[in-house]
């Protein structure tokens, strides 16, 4: 897990940290759809479902394979990419210690990310801000997953904005455009954070 962007590897493992209600489970599924349309041979999304409720920390995993059948059904350890849907999750020691690979955090720029291992590449996107600016709300809560997948596309080059458009059209019917526009903004604004080592 030492190289930076690992999109040439056959098997790619992703861990998603979110809070119940933020759409992390749906994100794992949409990520599989995007990767599958982008030509990956096999994909598997693994939501860690239990008795969660809104706001509780939850995890989802994704395995993507370019060539071989995926046979690993367990949760992911040592992910190639870790997505953090909410920077307040970084207050939880077990979340911080599980970060690996390239980390994407939904956080505004002023947030201090020093708790993250300085050897890890970290990218940030203010998905919450973009979502609120676009009025992308469900029951008052900002939608995050569709935006973070836009940021992830830029960060990894794994699939294009056109693929995101196709997946959202198929999935969200008439609501696809709002989600897509926000995803495009996230795509354009995600950036790598300078780390002090």
């Amino acid at each position, binding site marked *: 897990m030492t190289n930076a962007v690992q999109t040439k590897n056959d098997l790619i493992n992703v861990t998603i940290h979110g809070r119940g209600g933020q759409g992390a489970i749906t994100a794992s*599924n949409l990520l*599989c*759809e995007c990767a*599958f349309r982008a030509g990956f041979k*096999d*994909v*598997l*999304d*693994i*939501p860690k*479902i*239990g008795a969660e409720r809104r706001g509780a920390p939850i995890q989802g995993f994704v395995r993507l394979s370019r060539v071989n059948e*995926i*046979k*690993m*059904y*367990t*949760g992911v*350890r040592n992910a190639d990419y870790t997505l953090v849907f909410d920077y307040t999750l970084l207050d939880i020691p077990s979340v911080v210690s599980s970060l690996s690979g390239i980390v994407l955090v939904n956080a505004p720029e002023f947030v201090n990310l020093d708790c993250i291992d300085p050897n890890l590449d970290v990218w940030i996107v203010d998905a919450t801000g973009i979502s609120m600016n676009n009025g992308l709300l469900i029951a008052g809560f900002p939608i995050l997953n569709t935006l973070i997948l836009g940021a992830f596309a830029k960060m990894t080059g794994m699939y294009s904005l056109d693929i995101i458009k*196709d997946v959202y059209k198929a999935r969200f019917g008439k609501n696809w455009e709002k989600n897509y526009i926000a995803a495009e903004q996230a795509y354009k604004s995600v950036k790598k954070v300078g780390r002090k080592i």
Partner: protein
Amino acid sequence: MTKVESEFEGVHLLKGNFAAAYAARAARVQVVTAFPITPQTLIVEKISDLVDSGKMNCEFIRMESEHSVMAALVGASIAGARTYTGTSGQGLLYMAEPVHWAAGTRLPMVMSIASRGIAPPWNIWADFSDVMSQRDSGWLIQLNSTHQEIYDSVLMGYKITEDPEVMLPLMAAYGGFILSHTSKPVDMPPQSEIDSFLPEIPEKGWDHIFLDADRPMMHGALVMPGDFYQEFRMKIHLAQLRAKEKIKVVTKEFKEKFGRDYGNGLFYEYKTSDAEYIMINYGEIAKQMELTIDTLRNEGYNVGMINLRTYRPFPSEELIEKVKHAKILGVVDRATAFGSPTGGPVSSDVRAALQTSSETRNLSIIPFINGLGGRDVFPEEQREQFEILFHVLDKGEYPKNKDLMHATYWTGTIDRRST
């Protein structure tokens, strides 16, 4: 992008439960009875959606309990309908009484089981103790390892159960959440090909039982000890044994038509032909064990695996044939059979079956229990299981530093010394 994609044909990412629901639709089931229970609920929710939106033509009946689900399904099947439902764990236990009724009445239904641990304590994750509890019910019991197999097993299921030589219901089980709620690409054949693969549903009901005013028949009668009770039981057992051949034939036809290979239908092998160490395993952790076998083969170990697809009828003779050249055998259960000779249901059966042949009678068989209640089984743990086989064969003794209970290894157990 003008081509209209069908939701029901071609390759789509599907959760295991949706694969089951789509297969039921593809099999043109006529009656589905439903009661929600995690992790099966998505099956009947999806079917409910499909029926409501006019995409599936069947009678969908919401019941007040799993017991009623099966009771109503028995009624529908007696009336000659192709029937389907799904359940899990505690729901299957509550359903148990009419489950036996369905087999005793020789009704050809298919039921998907998203297997979960039996409570208490409450548990909703992968554990096959629920289906194993129905081992002696007379149902054919199959265990699925992949999302595609969930879909395919439902289709093959109707062709097996509706065969006049079989006429027994079939349950196909897969790990709760680990397959039921994860998604993978599933290839769904065109409806016309499925239609030509499946038997036609007889217009006037099944040959042996029907609801028809022109052909009055008494149902649910009592038989005295001197009447046919014992003979009925013999016939169920005979039909189970005949089902083995039928499963083989249908699996072969399925492969010829759709190109997907499930071995002889009773199990499929992974690198067993020259293997000295053979593991018998089932469910998704068997599929995953192929990775460990590849690793060990690269290191020079002659290891292989039999992935058990059909637990009832139990493939005794077929198994003997495939393992008789092995030097040692392991059997992995993701289920418990408390107080049985090994603690695991499949390992107890394997031991009993291999006793029947002089070629396998002296084979060492090491039972394993792992992954109960959905606990992750990582490749390291599967490797540890093989290493126990190596140790027993090479040193002639059981390694002691493990959770060994009455000659069965419970792997992946929380280390009690450190907690």
